[in-house]
């Protein structure tokens, strides 16, 4: 029984820590649903009537969708290019590992790849 109680307290503390870290984010998320008056209220208002005005405002802004599009474009391009380039390099490192021990940083990648490739697929493939 005592063990149970201790375990419950332990889990409660962990949950509190997680919530503590989430608090500022939650505060900003809540701020998105406040009116300007509620946001700038002195002293700080804890209870408020939620509104979607800020979101409507955001969508009506002329540059919102173009910015969003730019973000998507940049992240998509970054992922595609990085994947293509890194895939080739990673293939080289994983298929031609002889004379090269992966966990240790070595500054010349070529030492692994100077061996003549016999044209066969690697044993693990």
């Amino acid at each position, binding site marked *: 029984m005592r063990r149970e109680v201790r375990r419950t307290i332990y889990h409660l503390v*962990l949950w509190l820590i997680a919530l503590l870290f*989430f608090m500022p984010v939650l505060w900003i998320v809540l701020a998105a649903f406040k009116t300007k008056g509620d946001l700038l209220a002195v002293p700080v208002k804890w209870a408020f009537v939620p509104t979607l005005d800020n979101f409507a405002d955001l969508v009506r802004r002329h540059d919102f969708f173009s910015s969003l599009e730019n973000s998507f474009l940049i992240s998509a391009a970054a992922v595609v290019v990085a994947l293509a380039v890194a895939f080739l390099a990673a293939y080289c490192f994983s298929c031609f590992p002889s004379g090269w021990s992966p*966990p240790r940083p070595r500054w010349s990648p070529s030492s692994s*790849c100077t061996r003549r490739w016999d044209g066969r697929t690697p044993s693990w493939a």
Partner: protein
Amino acid sequence: MSVTPGESRIEVKGPGRAGRLNRLRALRLRWVDNSRYFPQMLLVPVLVFFVIWNIVPLFWMLGMSFYRYSIITGTPPRFLLFGNYADLFANIAVWLALSKTFIFVLGAVVSETVLGLLLGFLFWGSTTMPGRRLALTLLFTPMILTPAATGTFFRLIYEPTFGVAPHLVHLLFGANINFLGDKAWAMFSVLLVDIWMWTPFMILITLAALGSVPRAELEAAEVDGLPWLKRMTHVILPHAKFIVMLGILLRTIDAFKVMELIYQLTRGGPGSTTEVVGLMLFRRAFEGFDMGWSSALAVVTLLIAIAFTSVYLFILNLSREEKGVA
């Protein structure tokens, strides 16, 4: 045209344009297919990227650091040799910025590591906790936010008139603190945001490190009734320390080049209380347009960062050799 596997044997027929094209293709196929340079060819895209985006700008910056070059005056660059470096060395503001950066790095990395390890251990033992995944997700949210956005919304939270942090402090302790406007509190407040943002990263690293400890060894330690401290030093640490060290290294480098977070929070103020090297660099380069001088500062910063990294790698390799992994 026929290609046999293993060795490219490509028959090229006829003279003229088609023949030449075929010969070229044969050459290309021989190269790509079973050339001894095939592995190196796989590395070419990465190296091209690396050269274009890293090496060329690096040397460009290095070259520019020897010139007096301002984009707004319109005068051609003037060669100074080490003039910019001498100026850096004599400039008290640079030393102040460097010392503030070191304070920031030390404060951030030490607190994040200690907190991260502590909370990582706590969360490691909580496999039966109800809603553990949700709790961890909430815990990791600060890490995935953009530093610029974090800075902006923490400026709202710290805002002395309507911000929630001064309000809470007033409720709890009865003190009125202007977090970002007070010289005594500005650095601490900025550090607090960085710690809030990156402690989850260290928790994640700690969890990964603890996950790499073999279960069998842990169970053996438990069966043998090894005391807590010994279990820590003999079983967990030898396995976990590489990953933890890697986390510390990444955090050090990241904290050293902090810019946008502080820029959004205080713009280096009040006065120059929170003006770290990254911020100084940004201001001189993109607000003052003094390219030569800021290149020199960038080179110095880079050298310091390299020094940091080498020390960590040295320690990492040392402990690895001790363990006999190498």
